[in-house]
């Protein structure tokens, strides 16, 4: 086990930021901490890294208790914070060199690692640029390079794609998967469910500092009674027809709003063909058709009753 968190409690005055949080991260996995803003993701990371004092609980990293002076453990850890933390007056290369140099003493090795990090995040050609000359996406990549240049075995990535354009986001996500394939264990936090769904092998959903669900993508989706969701562009439909649709055994919910008919199926059911047949039989004209499987957002919504991407607070 690379990380073992046991009954972690952290309070900010009356606010309980972490509420008896327990989880484990296995070697070689990409562990996703998913939750809305203010759910306690960043606090959990800062407690794991011993930057923050916590009120109760234990944290073990690489099988040893993690503390502020666990330099041996810190040597194997890389952190990419949500906020860009680089020096404005140092160039791209100097920034990476500086932070890499806090971990690696050997000059030649450090030089090689810096080269690799520049290449890894795709900043070739920008080495002599000052951070203020970089776009938001490139700046994020620099931030990542500064955190992973020393080739850590365990990497914490705290919302590394916030405010990043789609191209850079893809580049970053591909890079994270690549780091994982190279052997790094990764703890990844985000409130973008698509990202977590895309790259994480195991996911824990946090809300109000508490675990509300955890498991693989599939197991999380299996937790809720939700199957395929179909939407049809329909000009008009009678109430009687809607009632008959609702009576189908596979259907859990029917809604008609703004010329859009939404039909949700129970867990494990596929209803697209059945609904299409119904519309044809009833002579109801329809336009475009959308069909999708349940997402983590549906899981979150089902469990908590609210949207995953809400803005519940600052980074707690």
């Amino acid at each position, binding site marked *: 086990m690379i990380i073992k968190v046991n009954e972690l409690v952290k309070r*900010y005055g009356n606010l309980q930021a972490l509420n008896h949080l327990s989880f484990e991260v296995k070697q070689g996995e990409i562990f996703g901490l998913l939750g809305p803003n203010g759910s306690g993701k960043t606090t959990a990371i*800062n407690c794991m*890294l*011993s*930057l*923050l*004092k916590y009120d109760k609980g234990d944290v073990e990293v690489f099988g040893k208790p993690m503390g*502020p*002076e666990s*330099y*041996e453990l*810190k*040597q194997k*850890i890389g*952190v990419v*914070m949500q*906020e*860009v*933390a*680089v*020096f404005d*007056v*140092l160039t791209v290369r*100097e920034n990476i060199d*500086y*932070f890499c*140099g*806090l*971990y690696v*003493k050997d000059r030649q090795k450090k030089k090689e690692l810096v080269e690799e990090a520049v290449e890894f995040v795709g900043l070739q050609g920008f080495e002599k640029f000052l951070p203020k000359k970089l776009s938001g996406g490139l700046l994020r990549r620099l931030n990542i390079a*500064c*955190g992973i240049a020393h080739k850590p075995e365990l990497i914490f990535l705290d919302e590394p794609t916030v405010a990043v354009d789609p191209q850079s986001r893809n580049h970053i996500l591909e890079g994270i998967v690549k780091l994982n394939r190279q052997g790094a264990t990764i703890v990844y936090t985000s409130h973008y469910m698509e990202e977590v769904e895309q790259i994480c092998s195991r996911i824990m959903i946090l809300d109000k500092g508490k675990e509300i669900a955890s498991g693989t993508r599939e197991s999380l989706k299996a937790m809720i009674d939700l199957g395929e969701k179909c939407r049809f562009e329909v000009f008009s439909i009678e109430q009687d027809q809607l009632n008959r649709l609702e009576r189908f055994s596979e259907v859990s919910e029917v809604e008609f709003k703004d010329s859009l008919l939404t039909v949700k199926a129970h867990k494990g059911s596929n209803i697209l063909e059945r609904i299409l047949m119904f519309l044809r039989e009833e002579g109801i004209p329809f336009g475009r058709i959308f069909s999708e499987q349940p997402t983590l957002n549906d899981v979150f919504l089902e469990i908590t009753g609210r949207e995953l991407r809400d803005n519940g607070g600052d980074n707690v």
Partner: protein
Amino acid sequence: MFSHIFSYRLKTILRDREMVFWAMVFPLLMATLFKIAFANITAAGTILPVPMAVITDAAYHNDQALQETLLRVSRSDQPLLELHPVSREEAEALLFDDEVAGYLEAGRPLRLHVASSGIKQSILRTFLDQYSQYQSTAETIMRRNPEGLDEFISQLERQISYTTPRPLGRNQPDQVLVFYFALLAMACFYGCYYGLLEAKEIQANLSYRAARVNMSPVHKLKAFLASSAASLTIHFSAQVFLLMYLRFILKVDFADQFLFVLVACFTGCVLSLALGALIGSGLKVSENLKDGIATAIGLGGSFLAGLMYPGMKQIVSVHFPVVKWINPVGILADSYYALFFYEGSSRYLLNLTLLLAFTLIFITAVYLLIRKRHYDSI
């Protein structure tokens, strides 16, 4: 690791244009401006001899004692007067053209005509007041013992110069130097900004870069020491450059006590850096407010030390003696002044001891604050 952090801190500070301007360039500009502004004051300090016309009428020709006295005070090694014996019309013309500070009309009483008031006119009036008081004595000496007139005149000159401060120690007191020494102290206390920066770069609850350093396998205090050493190196070098500029370009006199000046300067640099780090790590206020406090200490302290008005140093000393002993900027400025002015080193050593005591207190406080390695909140 020390050299890695040290060299990168040197780079980051030297590339910070704002910091370079305020901590290095601004004091040089201020010193140059002082030199330009005080050039006239210094020139005004060499006001002797004072040009004075005397009307060569009958009364003057009949007053042998006055003639002899005026001749002697205008022909000595350090003449008090530049005498112009002329007619009344010529005297008035000279006064009108500002060629003389005044003209004298012999008789009883002696009459001094001036067109304005100033230091030169005051000197003439003082001299003639003194002479008038002893006029009958001078006349008696002239009649009975003309050789004794020299001694009489030298006593008169001594009484006039009594209004000028005499050196009690190494040098004459010099108000202009109070400005320069206060400026040096102020520049030294710009070190507070370096201290603020060091606190910000090491305390994870103050900056994300510091959080990154705290997550690395580097001992926090060692990182702080390496970084602070770079700040101190740059700050002290800038102060030495400023001292050199003052001494060799602007020709400010440090009374050949340069080594002791450097010792005081170095102590001041360490003290100011520690004070800044204490403000930065100890106060739970915004960054701007911390900057404001550092500025207030530097500027306020140098104001009390005489940067804006040299008499303030004396006012503080007489009316607010406690402030004098708790104002580190004033203590540092006074260290320089003590080296320049006093013969012995006791006052300098007292100031240096106070500076070292402050430094020790601040460093201890900073250590207690910085050694904390995890935080209640970030």
